[in-house]
């Protein structure tokens, strides 16, 4: 916890300080390139929402940004550290300032919820055990999991696991927060609670938050800026209002939830199937162009 924090920009209204800067980022799995030259800047205290279809490379982008996946090309600068050339010590220092909640939660299944949240505190701080207990309780209250301290992840519902993962990501009061679909699988009330939490963190701690989500309502509520990724390329980027007014056909398609035209055949097939089965209903939520 002794890494240097670069000075904040003194006067408000100036160009915000860039915390994450990505240039021409490429990622390859074997012969297959899944990110084709991503350019991205995230300012301090900014909430960036990453939108995009399934398999478009959102999780991969997050994994690269936290140093879990080696890019095959391009540059990533976090504050003044070049992530691709960082020494183990620099990488560790950066990671102590970030919190991440993975798409699948990634809670430690051999530990209770409280132990999960307490782990980074126990490992990286010299806080008293009693202080750690209090902090753990506060974080769990924050996500509405007070009273579940001694449950194991396997004893929680999917949504509760998600929330426990969010609590763990918050444990070290990180400067940068990464959320991979924090509200997928949560009921609307709790999902709204997570949105409020993100807004509160931004207000109170000026945290930089990067959220991958499919929930459009939530995205428009929390975002300072949005990017839309499609097949490994950023095809649109801008503040929510600009996004809302965009005439870019792919952006419109995404925001208006228009099904892919190719799916038509599949829908016909599904309809035929349901009709033959006697149900006679069209599949829900399908609006064919």
């Amino acid at each position: 916890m002794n890494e240097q924090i670069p000075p904040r920009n003194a006067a408000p209204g100036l160009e915000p300080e860039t915390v994450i800067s990505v240039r021409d980022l490429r990622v390859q799995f074997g012969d297959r390139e899944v990110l084709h030259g991503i350019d991205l800047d995230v300012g301090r205290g900014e909430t960036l929402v990453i939108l995009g279809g399934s398999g478009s490379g959102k999780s991969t982008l997050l994994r690269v940004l936290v140093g879990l996946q080696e890019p095959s090309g391009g540059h990533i600068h976090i504050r003044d550290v070049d992530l691709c050339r960082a020494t183990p010590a620099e990488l560790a220092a950066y990671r102590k300032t970030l919190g991440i909640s993975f798409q699948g939660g990634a809670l430690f299944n051999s530990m209770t919820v409280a132990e999960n949240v307490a782990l980074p505190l126990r490992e990286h701080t010299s806080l008293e055990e009693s202080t750690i207990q209090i902090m753990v309780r506060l974080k769990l209250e924050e996500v509405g999991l007070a009273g579940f301290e001694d449950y194991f992840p396997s004893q929680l519902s999917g949504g509760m696991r998600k929330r426990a993962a969010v609590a763990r990501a918050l444990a070290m009061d990180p400067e940068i927060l990464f959320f991979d679909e924090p509200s997928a699988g949560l009921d609307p009330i709790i999902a709204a609670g997570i949105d409020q939490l993100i807004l509160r963190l931004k207000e109170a701690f000026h945290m930089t938050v990067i959220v991958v989500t499919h929930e459009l309502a939530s995205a428009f509520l929390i975002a300072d800026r949005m990017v839309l990724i499609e097949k490994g390329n950023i095809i649109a980027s801008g503040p929510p209002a600009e996004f809302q007014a965009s005439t870019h056909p792919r952006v419109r398609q995404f925001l208006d939830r228009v099904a892919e035209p190719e799916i038509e055949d599949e829908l016909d097939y599904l309809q035929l199937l349901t009709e033959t089965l006697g149900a006679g209903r069209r599949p829900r939520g399908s609006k064919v162009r």
Partner: protein
Amino acid sequence: MELTVRIGRATLAGLAYLGGLARLGLRAAYYAFVAPFRGKPMRFQRAVHQSMAVGVEALPILSLISFFIGVILALQGAYELRKFGALNYVSSAVAISMTRELGPLITAIVVIGRSGSAFAAEIGTMKVTEEIDALETMALDPVQFLVMPKFLAMALMLPCLTTWADSMGVFGGALFGVAGAGFTFRGYLLSTFDALQLRDITTGLIKSIVFGGTITAVGCYEGFRTGAGPEQVGRSTTSAVVASIFLVIAVDLVFTAMFYVLGRG
């Protein structure tokens, strides 16, 4: 040509595998013996916890197996010794084969089945559920956090288990000695101690420590190699068991040959 290429490839793959094991072992050794002096925590509690799982919980099954092996050794030995009227040598035959060879080997096999496979399954599952990734993003090295305590536990528990297995084997031999070869229990034990040299016991224990290192390295390495998807965990566990058995026996051969050469001089 085709054949030589294939042999070459297989050799390279084998060497790469051994290299991976060695790297893992060295990193764990660094965290166990060097890093604590640089202010990094030692994870004693985790090592103790692992030792319980590796050592104490293996005692019942190991006792039973090594006792049976002791009886079997005595029976097989007696079959041959009786022909020479040397039935009273059965105690030394059992003692020496147990301490030098079978005690360490049986212990290793039991530990592979119980713990080597469990290491691979544990780390493999954590890999699949992104728990390993979560550790890394918390700036915790999985080798320090998961692997090092396992190495410590194994290095500590395998010699203990082996000593225990040796004794249970001797008791197994004693059962036959008393029931079928006219020994008294006390007499059987005394002649066992007469036959054993300290070197028999130490070579066995040295082997057992190396076995412990091998089993841990293979189990953890296979765990980390687990690909995406739960079905890969099963594959890792299987390869951990197969590779450990092979490597333990190969290491056994090397060490036995080495002790043989050294022992002559």
